[in-house]
């Protein structure tokens, strides 16, 4: 009877566990296995190469590390520009101000759109020959600012980063706003009674109480932005000449372009470990910041 009841309980989790085992756990294990092999993904024979794939990543694959730096630059812009905008707008919408629900509604439209849609629309706006941006620059009498925004090596990466920030600031905005709304009004009233001005209460109340929220936003921004690549595929395809390549695009290229499945998995492991290390450091750093 007891046994039958336990069995019955397993039935509840069985579908979830099965799907999870097949589509998450098995691929997870295979990533680590395949990373040690040289394999084109088609032939039944795989050649065991030990850590050669990793050696190649570390000592020969300059494009891989370049793509890591590119993703780092996009992430830097997301952390500074995007999150600063998000915080500023959250502060603005946390006031007693008309239309604030309307603004909140609009600011989260870019995040719900797909990266493909956003990427292709912006690609059209930024097109070097027929794009609206260059058209406006000419009309405004600024033809020397006209660029091939997405195919000029000097501007491509930063342009992509700014579009990424356009798409992403709504997340930070919503989280910051929710965080600001949890700060009790009494804190500010008490501060005012004690003679504090707006700047004082911002520095002494808002900032300290928002540190944990900012850390959460920062971790999510880093994890999300480092792994972003669909937007980039849609805008530049990784070009011009690797200038907007990012790690996930490289993994995809190793797999689909050069049919090196083992190497692609090794790149995946390498990147996954780097991401975990970054979020761990951020977490430790934030705990330290909170304790002091």
């Amino acid at each position, binding site marked *: 009877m007891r046994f039958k009841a336990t069995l019955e309980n397993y039935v*509840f989790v069985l579908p979830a566990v099965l*799907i999870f085992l097949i589509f998450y756990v098995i691929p997870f294990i*295979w990533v680590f296995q395949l990373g040690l092999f040289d394999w084109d993904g088609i032939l039944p024979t795989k050649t065991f190469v030990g850590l050669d794939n990793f050696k190649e990543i570390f000592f020969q694959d300059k494009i891989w590390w370049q793509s890591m730096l590119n993703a780092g630059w996009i992430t830097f812009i997301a952390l500074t520009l995007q999150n600063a905008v998000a915080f500023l*707008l959250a502060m603005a919408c946390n006031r007693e101000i008309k239309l604030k629900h309307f603004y*909140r509604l609009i600011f989260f439209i870019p995040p719900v759109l797909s990266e493909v*849609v956003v990427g292709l629309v912006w690609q*059209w706006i930024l097109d070097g020959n027929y794009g*609206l941006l260059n058209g406006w620059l000419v009309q405004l009498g600024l033809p020397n600012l006209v660029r091939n925004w997405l195919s000029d090596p000097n501007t491509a990466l930063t342009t992509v980063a700014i579009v990424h920030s356009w798409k992403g600031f709504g997340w930070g905005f919503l989280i910051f706003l*929710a965080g600001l709304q949890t700060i009790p009004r009494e804190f500010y009233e008490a501060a005012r009674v004690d003679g504090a001005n707006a700047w004082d209460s911002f520095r002494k109340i808002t900032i300290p109480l928002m540190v944990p929220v900012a850390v959460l936003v920062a971790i999510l921004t880093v994890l999300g932005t480092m792994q972003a690549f669909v937007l980039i595929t849609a805008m530049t395809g990784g070009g011009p000449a690797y200038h907007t390549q990012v790690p*996930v695009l490289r993994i995809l290229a190793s797999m689909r372009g050069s049919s090196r499945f083992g190497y692609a998995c090794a790149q995946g492991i390498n990147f996954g470990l780097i991401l975990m290390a970054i979020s761990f450091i951020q977490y430790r750093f934030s705990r330290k910041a909170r304790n002091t």
Partner: protein
Amino acid sequence: MRTIAYYKSKKIAVNAIIHLLLIAVTITCLFPLFWMVSSSLKTQETIFKDMSLIPREFHFENYILAWREGGFGRYFLNSILYTVSVVAGIIIIASLAAYAFSRLRFPGKNFLFFMFMAAMMIPIPGSFVPLYVLLSKLHLRNTALGYILCMVNVGLSTSIFLLKTFFDKLPLELEDAARMDGCSKLGIWWHVALPLAKPVLAVVVVFNALNVWNEYVLALIIFDNKNLMPLQRALMMFRGEFLTDYPLLMAGLTITALPIIIVYLLMQKYIVKGVTSGALFG
């Protein structure tokens, strides 16, 4: 001594500056979409010369062309099919599991739950490589089922987490009453727990629907067959094939974006709730 009028006018000035900033950002958010729709109504001849914001003539036939000739009608139906199937699958499978994790007793429960939660934390950026191999072996590549199962898996962990958190807070009395009446465990899940979970189910539905509708990379590695492709994949392929057919591309983009915007406007309460509960980051 500063007067009340001084403070009032200062407040009005500050608010005006803030509104200016917010309106500027609002325009920045909406303008690309406006330009997308505007471009979708121009023709191949005029689109490269005509930078007017509102087209001189409205060529709605672009939408018919995109829908029929461009194949977006089929891709649209594919996207609908995948989204509905995946969301239905997640609702059933995740809520069964979440209910068990919250209420039922069985050996290994904590370990299994921990496994799902760990999956939310650990990033595996290259997981699509072995997934491709696995699906090929199972003969699930180029099948709707393969894509649907993969996408169910993608949404499973967060959905289980959200639902379990909700069930944990639910009082036991209602379920006890149902049990007294001779309701089976499955019956309690279906007749008592699920209906009570409606608010959180709405969050699960909206987030997973957005996620499936907008998904690209799994669709890229799973489908070579045009007839099975969802919209996002088809858009990228269309762009590769018809590099400069911008009016049709923009019509395709509008067809893709419109349902999402409508769903968002209708369900935005649940989206805000999901984001701010801090658990949903895919």
